């Protein structure tokens, strides 16, 4: 089991967290084509590498963003959505 750092509750075992999938920037739904929208909702950037992801700390009900490398499974930093400046560097 890995450890993950919740920006609110600190470093906790992974079993307390739920993976919420890749963060995807939505196209403007009023101007995008159907195909663009279909790609947004269905497709994922599946290749390994650094990703922005949703994670949920279940006991406290905290959603946050983790920047994680999906190849090495190392988390670079975690922060609340929209609060990139308040960052939890992943501890050793």
């Amino acid at each position, binding site marked *: 089991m890995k450890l993950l750092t919740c920006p609110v509750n600190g470093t906790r075992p992974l079993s307390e967290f739920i993976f919420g999938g890749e963060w995807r920037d939505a196209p403007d739904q009023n101007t995008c084509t159907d195909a663009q*929208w279909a790609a947004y909702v269905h497709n994922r950037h599946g290749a390994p590498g650094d990703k922005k992801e949703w994670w949920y700390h279940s006991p406290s009900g905290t959603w946050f963003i983790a920047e994680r490398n999906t190849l090495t499974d190392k988390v670079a930093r975690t922060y609340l959505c*929209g609060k990139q400046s308040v960052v939890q560097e992943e501890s050793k």
Partner: protein
Amino acid sequence: MSMRMPKQTGEWVNRTKAIKFTFEGEEYSAFEGDTISSALWAAGQQVLGRSFKYHRPRGVLSFANHDVNVMLTDGQDTNMRGDVVEVQDGMQLQVVNTDGGVKKDRNSYIDSISPILPVGFYYKAFHTPRRLFPFWENIIRKAAGLGITNFNYPRILKRKRNDYCDVLVIGAGPSGLTAALVAAQAGLEVIVVDENRRAGGSLTYDRAGTEEARTQLEELLVKVANDGNISLRTGAYAAGYYADHLIPIVEAGGITKIRARSVIVASGAFEQPPVFRYNDLPGVMLGSAAQRMIYRYGVKPFNNGLVFTANDYGYRVALDLLDAGVKLVAVVDLRAEGKGAPLAAELAHRGVKIYAGYCVYEALATPKKFGVRGAVICSYDEKENVALTDNAITIECDGIAMCAGWAPAAALLYQAGTGMRYESAVQQFVPEKLPVGMFAAGKVNGIFDFEQRMFDGARAGADAIKYLGLEAPQVSVTQHSGVSPSHAYPVVPHPKGKNFVDFDEDIQVKDFVNAAQEGFDNIELMKRFTTVGMGPSQGKHSNMNAIRILARIRGLPVEKIGTTTSRPFFHPTPIGHLGGRGFHPHRFTALHGWHEDAGAVFVDVGAWTRAAYYSKPGLSKQDAVQEEAMAVRRNAGIIDSSSFGKIEVHGADAALFLERFFAGGFVSQQVGESRYALMIDDTGVLVDDGIASRLAPDLFYLSVGTSNAAAIYREMQRSQQQWQLDIALVNVTGAYGTINVAGPAAREIVSGLTSLDLSESAFPLGSIREAEVAGVPARVLRVGFVSEQTYEIHIPAASSQHVWNALLTAGKPHQLRPYGTEAQRLLRLEMGNHMPGVDTDGLTNPYEVGAEWAIKMDKPFFTGQRSLVIVAKRPLKKRLVAFMLGEGFKGEMPQECNLVIDSGEIGGRVTSISYSKSIGRVIGLAYVNPLKKSPGSEFQIRTDNGSLVSAVVTKTPFFKTQKGG
């Protein structure tokens, strides 16, 4: 003949406590502390097992759990490892996988037909003609497996613990203990684990005939015992490495999951057998096995022994054998330069004949291959790997100790992602690039000299200290130089084979040659084709030789061959240890006890346990459910709905939030009004639904179905994180109890308990009011899910029983009775209401259930909106309709998920169906071709027995209500 020696200093047996046990029906005695193998060997019993494939007799090989020659059952347990399992008084032991006992195994004929069982033989035969394969498979299947599973074995769940430390040291040999001492002296908390019953590693058996090792060990153990920062745990193996230094430690009593800040692997090395014909006979054992036998158990390995060595270690073993009173008939050294070994002179001085540049060409077996009667030795051309048999000589002996070198016990290092390289100075893989926070010391690190191993331990301890941010002195270690502790190629060819590489799987040298010839010349393919390393010991004694043999076959250096992947577990680990206690949480409502007393039959809904129906003597489930439903239609029923998800949305933007989260409109919603809320996901799929009630301009109270509530709340939280609206979400599911009173008499029953005006005009369907019910502050909703006359009463959970009782009392004159989820499902079906998850699946879009009315497409945004724009343009493929079967229907009753058949093809399926007593018909919901959605259309359902039943699409509700229908 007893092989028990006089008491040895430091031995692991307690000679004051005698034990009796039986093996294969015969009685034996032992001392407390003996393992099964040591006890039997002491009694002169050498045939301790049969091999997996050829059923050859086997004895002790590693005596260290690196092989599975000795596998037994006590009638309870299935695969007991005799080399390490302590014998207990009264044990009745049998060898596994024999037909007729270990001495009379009827399957031993397989050894003589081995020429027709070449490597991978099972791929090459038995499949043509096809019809005969089941016959052959049956025979092969009978031969498979080792022990017999005991179906009466008790369900034992071992305890689990969590532990933490600064430094976890794996292996309590000289390097591990030194590392621990150094780290502990720096103030770090250290845990040392070792799989052996006692600490000390090689110091417990490798003595070369002197007392030095024993005193060194005693000194170390005293220091460790006096250091309060060290927790030493023996009989505890590190089972595997998992991310972020999580290492499960397995002991007899259970598992301790240790999360370490740093890890020092000082796990030593497995001694590797040289490969020669009949190296598997009982009486041929590894040198370290012979040493363990002598010093740990006081048992003589053999009487007239021969040492076959390919390194200097064999000379230490020879001295230990002499010390034990073994007559040494010869030391045979594969190396021409062997005579220069430091201890050779001492051996020669003691009259031992040394044959350097010689090999054991083959071991000679006593009848039935039960033991060793001699060895054929001859000169050996190391460079060409040829045994020069011209002047071979036969030496009589009753046992052979084998020393050829070592393979690092590096399983955890590999699992942690250590980059290993092949170091020719020690002819062994050693760590090159260690993961962050991991260190290696001692033999696993390629350091063999005793003093240097201590230094290496100190160095690793210092590295861990520095890694953890403290200061530590520099320790220098001299890398191995001189003669390699491992021989580069200790494999003696023999035209007749039976020179074993893998003792678990009976794999001989020629199997590798033949596998390579067939194209399996990559280490992983070779493993898979020959099954080398795939047995229960997972290659501990065989992988290194396999790599060497493949390298030789391909003419490549060993490092080009690489290794197979190491995986947990280090030793096979019992399911009862790993499983531990199961965790199956259930949530009960505050009224659970009442339901139990009332004869409720429960059903799990998500995490909740709900009353499905109330059983009544003499009534079938079906009838009980119909009665409960009839009560609601005729008078009134009451149900505990406390498991419903309840979420409060507070704040100025509360309506806006719902407007974005759900498909309907909420901004225009009046205080006191309740609205249907439909949740659509990004891709346009209908996820769930609920009721959103406005309690104040800035407060909505949302109730959703039981099973999905947690997920919906989670998604609401996520949306809020993105949208950052001026709201707050509170999950009050557990805080409120929910009771529904439904039926024509519901209004009268509830009105007696509240001052609320329940008249139709003051409190119409689709509204919410706050008032006291039975003296308890409550939120009361008028909902229409099961009946138009339903009051859903939300009260603080702790008051649930009080309000429930008050309602029951008030309802008595009206024949109010409780109903469960089964009746609820029937009642909502009578109303024509679909249930997400029952009448929808993971891909259902809202148009398919006719929910257009609940979607407000002209809003600026809601989740799923853009996808619905696309979905709406596409032709509808199926449509949920309500249907009835014919009056007095008597045929095969269709079941939920029976198919709707349309011109021979699948047209849809039944999602809900039930007989309704109040309607007098079988009614249901089904997906049909959208062309058939109009009331009056007929369609066919295929029942379980294949018959087709006609159904007619019907308007809902199925019965007459105030609003018509």
